[in-house]
C-alpha cells in the first residue's frame, strides 16, 4: 500500500557517483504533503548494491567520498530547487547505536557538516536550516519557511507520526 493519505511520493531520481572505482548512489524522493506547497524532498545515500555486505567494496579516501557525494546532491537539487519547499535527510540513530559505540556521534557530526555545505548552495531558496530529533532518528532540514512556524511543524509532526524536537 503506497503512502499515507496526507502524502504521496510522486517522483524519485537516483544518480550515481564513482569514487576510486567504487559506485555509490544518491537518491532524491519527492513528496507532496497536504498543506505544504511545493515538494518535500528526502535525500538518501547508498552503495551501488544496496547491500549490507561491504566486503566487495574497497576503502576510499573520506575527503573525496564526502565531497563527491555532497556535490552530487547539490547538482541534483539545483535542477528543480524552485519547486522544493523542504529538503532534508536523516539518520536512524537506534540502528546505529546497535552496531557501533560512537557511530551516532560521528555520523551526526558528518551529516551536520554536509547539511551546512548543501545549505550554502540552496539558501537563496531554502533559507532556514534546522536539526530535528525524533524518536529513533535525527534529521536535517532546509526549508523556505521556518519549521518552527506552527503550521508547518504540526503538519510534519502529523505526517511523520512522531514528536519532533527542533535542536537548532
Amino acid at each position, binding site marked *: *500500500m503506497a*503512502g*499515507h*493519505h*496526507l*502524502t504521496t511520493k510522486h517522483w524519485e531520481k537516483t544518480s550515481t557517483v564513482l569514487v*576510486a572505482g*567504487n559506485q*555509490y548512489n544518491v537518491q532524491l524522493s519527492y513528496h507532496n504533503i497536504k498543506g505544504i506547497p511545493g515538494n518535500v524532498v*528526502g535525500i*538518501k*545515500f*547508498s*552503495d551501488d548494491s*544496496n547491500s*549490507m555486505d*561491504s566486503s566487495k*567494496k574497497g*576503502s*576510499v*579516501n*573520506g*575527503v*573525496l*567520498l*564526502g*565531497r563527491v*557525494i*555532497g556535490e552530487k546532491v547539490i547538482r541534483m537539487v539545483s535542477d528543480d530547487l524552485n519547486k522544493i519547499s523542504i529538503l532534508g535527510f*536523516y*539518520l*536512524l540513530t537506534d*540502528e*546505529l547505536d546497535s552496531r557501533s*559505540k*560512537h557511530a551516532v*556521534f*560521528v*555520523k551526526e*557530526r*558528518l551529516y551536520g*557538516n*554536509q547539511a*551546512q*555545505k548543501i545549505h550554502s548552495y540552496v539558501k537563496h531558496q531554502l533559507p532556514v536550516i534546522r536539526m530535528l530529533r525524533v524518536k529513533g*532518528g535525527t*534529521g536535517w532540514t532546509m526549508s523556505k519557511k521556518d519549521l518552527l512556524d506552527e503550521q508547518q511543524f504540526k503538519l510534519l509532526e*502529523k*505526517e*511523520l*507520526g*512522531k514528536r519532533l524536537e527542533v535542536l537548532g
Partner: protein
Amino acid sequence: MKVKIDTTEIKDLPDDVAALIIADPSYNDEIPDLSTQEVNVLVHGVLSSIYDPALSFEENTREIKHRYISEARPNKYRLNKALGLIETYNKNINEEDIGSVEFSDMFQTITEPLISKDSEG
C-alpha cells in the same frame, strides 16, 4: 594530525585545528573516547565538507581555524580531550589507513521509509 586530503600525500594538519574539528564549538556535547578509526573518519569526513580544493592546504588550515573560532568560544576541556584523541591517533594510525574509510563509516544506507505504515492521519 596526519591527514590525506586525496589519496596521495600525507599532510600535517596542525593539532589545534584538528582539535577544533573534533571539539566543534557549535556543539556542547561530551566528546566520547573515540577510537583511532573513529577519529580518522570524523576528521576526514568533516574535511570533506569544509576543505576547499581551490585553496592551498595552508590557506585551508587558516580558513578552517578562523571558521571555528569565529563561531563560538572553544571550550578548553573539550579541546584538551580532542588533543588527547589526536595524540593517540597519531601514534596508532598506519600510514595506509590515513583518510581511509568505508562508505558505511560516513553514510547510513536507509531502505525503510521515514513515514511508517502505522502513522496516524
